[in-house]
């Protein structure tokens, strides 16, 4: 009888924890648009211009329409 009571109590406790956890999770959905934690430290460098795969320029470098005299490349 005592062992049966213990089993019932354990089962009840387990089911209770599962139910409470599910309720907590459902009430605290992760916001996918929330910023990463910890936040990325901002840079003192001015924001570069350009898109993915394009050249990111800071004010220290200026683009030109002149033909290149030479180029940087993988060697």
């Amino acid at each position, binding site marked *: 009888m005592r062992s049966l009571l213990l089993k019932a109590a354990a089962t009840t406790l387990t089911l209770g924890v599962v139910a409470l956890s599910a309720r907590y999770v459902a009430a605290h959905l992760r916001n996918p648009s929330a910023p990463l934690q910890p936040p990325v430290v901002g840079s003192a460098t001015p924001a570069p211009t350009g898109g993915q795969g394009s050249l990111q320029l800071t004010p220290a470098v200026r683009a030109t329409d002149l033909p290149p005299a030479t180029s*940087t490349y993988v060697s």
Partner: protein
Amino acid sequence: MSPEGWRALPGSGVERRSFLAMGSQCHLLGLGLERGRLDWATGRVVEAHRRFSRFVPESELSRFNASGGKWVAISPWLEELLRAALEAYRLSGGLVHAGVLPSMLAIGYTRPLAEGGPTPAAAVMPPPVPPLPELLQVEPGRARLRGGGIDLGGIVKGWLADRLAAVLGENCVVNLGGDLFARGPGPQGEGWPVGVGGTTVLLRDQGAATSGTWRRAWGWGGRRLHHLIDPRTGRPAESDLGEVSVVAERAFAAEVHAKAALLLGRGLAPAYLAGRACAWRLA
């Protein structure tokens, strides 16, 4: 327009020399240079290859790598370059590591790829590389290598481009295998027009470099191998970037930061380069 196209521009007056050295195509450009200066600089590049290539058995670097852990006398050139290797390690937070030679040998990069290609890769890869300051000690006139081996191929071109441009002339570009330094106002007074990832930018007293994994790459045993070793793993880098170009205040810094950014990957590279680079391109 190609460099040849530039040379054809009327009145540019740019002297130009192109040649193969350090396993790469090199270009020297200048305006108002002293007579014979391009020949002199070409000779210095060839000499640097003979001194610092691990592929040349009698090079000073090869002798140093074979020194068996003893303190050995080194030339001022090698001393400066070994100090630069330690500086590259520091600047990159340990990512640009000249002590990865055992890993390069293990993947079969035992000879210039233009001279017969890689040799069979080892079945067991070496472990991650210890910190460079633990392997390499440099003092005035002497140095000691405590295990492993040094490969200077990752930094020597940018380092030499800075040094050569400083003495070649007041208005010149030294481009060694794509790692370059542009000194002076260029042909039109606004800087030297330099191609970086398909865009032309004006560089004045600035360096540029590109690092990538698609050249010096080969397949072995179903694996894709390349020469850019990640010291954190001792294996070819597994990055989601294939090529990184960087403009910085020196060619040496551009070369170091391009390699480090490539190892960091697309997620971390922009934060790393912000504040370190004047311009960059991730591809």
